[in-house]
């Protein structure tokens, strides 16, 4: 499975489910978005993993399960069960790991052979992980994975030229030709925020942009399903981006709710700034403050923390045909998606501005 194939699934609506199977991790990286660590033991109950996956499969929406944590390989029995269940359901799998377990090539082979086949291994490798484990382990894990036909992606946060040089030297030319690199930013959440690893200055300019991350739901180790990947923030059951719990309801219902939810679809297309524009246009009295530069999550959190704004938005979105039409067109143009709502018929309908 190539990185391009994975990213296409990642950014198609609910083709990928992100499975945060544990909060346990032997490392305690300074930038960790979910603040995982050795003291946390929360993990998917082993007897429920397969049931949850069958629940997801019944919706016939998801094609890829991206497994993360914490560190999935720190709970090998649970990871094995998830991979087995995913295989039975016909899902492709990506496992996100630090490679801590690859102490030697032989050990890496042994660990991977004990698991059902994995479509791709995403190894997190950057200056933050390097403070805990040697880059050699990444090489071991990559070699063992490639031998088993598993694609290898090196995922790097805050990718710098100097780090690329050092990891390239360790991997060697032959391996470099067989792995793919994925560059991502340090998320302004969790330890990264508390340790001031991201710029904290606030600006008047509103961060603009639709949220592509909302294309994939998050399955937490407790069965809660969230629309947003910042799962340590959106964990309360009354949060607007909380979708349900796999122990209590069908994933199909959660999928359909998310697919027809005006708030989620507005955040994916016009973004939180688009919602602020609507609030201003309709004089709802909600005023933005200052936000970190280009950080749409910062603005989104502020919007979602205002029940009054959300109430106004919900009432507006349900009745305003022009808004529904805009979102439908934006979903088609941005994502090539159909929309589940009638979207107020065809041309000639009432619009809020005409």
């Amino acid at each position: 499975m190539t990185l391009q194939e994975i990213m296409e699934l990642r950014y198609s609506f609910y083709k990928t489910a992100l499975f945060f199977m544990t909060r346990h991790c032997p490392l305690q990286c300074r930038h960790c978005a979910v603040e995982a660590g050795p003291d946390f033991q929360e993990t998917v109950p082993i007897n429920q993993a397969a049931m949850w996956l069958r629940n997801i499969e019944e919706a016939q929406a998801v094609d890829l399960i991206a497994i993360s944590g914490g560190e999935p390989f720190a709970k090998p029995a649970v990871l094995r069960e998830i991979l087995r269940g995913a295989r039975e359901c016909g899902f492709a799998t990506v496992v996100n790991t630090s490679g801590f377990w690859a102490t030697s090539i032989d050990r890496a082979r042994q660990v991977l052979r004990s698991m059902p086949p994995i479509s791709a291994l995403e190894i997190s490798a950057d200056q933050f992980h390097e403070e805990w484990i040697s880059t050699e382990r990444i090489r071991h894990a990559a070699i063992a994975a490639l031998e088993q036909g598993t694609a290898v992606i090196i995922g790097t946060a805050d990718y710098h030229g100097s780090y690329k040089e050092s990891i390239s030297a360790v991997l060697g030319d032959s391996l470099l030709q067989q792995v793919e690199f994925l560059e991502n930013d340090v998320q302004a959440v969790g330890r990264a925020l508390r340790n001031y690893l991201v710029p904290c200055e606030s600006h008047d300019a509103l961060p603009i942009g639709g949220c592509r991350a909302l294309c994939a739901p998050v399955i937490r180790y407790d069965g809660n399903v969230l629309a947003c990947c910042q799962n340590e923030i959106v964990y309360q059951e009354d949060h607007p981006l909380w979708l349900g719990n796999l122990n209590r309801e069908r994933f199909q219902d959660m999928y359909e709710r998310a697919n027809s939810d005006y708030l989620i679809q507005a955040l994916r297309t016009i973004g939180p700034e688009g919602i602020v524009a609507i609030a201003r246009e309709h004089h709802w009295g909600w005023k933005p403050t200052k936000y970190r530069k280009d950080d749409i999550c910062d603005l989104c959190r502020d919007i979602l923390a205002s029940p009054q704004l959300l109430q106004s938005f919900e009432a507006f979105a349900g009745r305003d045909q022009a808004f529904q039409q805009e979102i439908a067109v934006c979903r088609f143009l941005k994502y090539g998606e159909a929309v589940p709502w009638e979207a107020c018929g065809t041309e000639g309908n009432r619009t809020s501005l005409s």
Partner: protein
Amino acid sequence: MNMKNRREMVKASAAFMGVLGAFGLLGGNARGQRLGTSTISTSTDTLKLIVEEAMVTKDMGAVLTKYERRITPQQKEALSKLTAQDLNALVSIKEKLAAFDVNMGANVGSIIY
């Protein structure tokens, strides 16, 4: 976005709804179905092809002639109602949406976040 542009966007969106409807990409036909099902995918792919080309050439008539065999008379009729102004507005919407994703190159992004 200023009000004039927003009005054009709203107008183009309203006109485009007829097109989405004709291709079965609205409401009942799309609801509850896996977005990757062959019917929805084929409709989406065909429409994307036509709209992308028309947004570049601004000549919907010529594009419809080219793809006539791949669409139904109803779909052709809905598409033929899109004016040059509508197509320009769709281009603006698409550019605005793309501008939001400035940092999202092929090797940039995150699988997990």
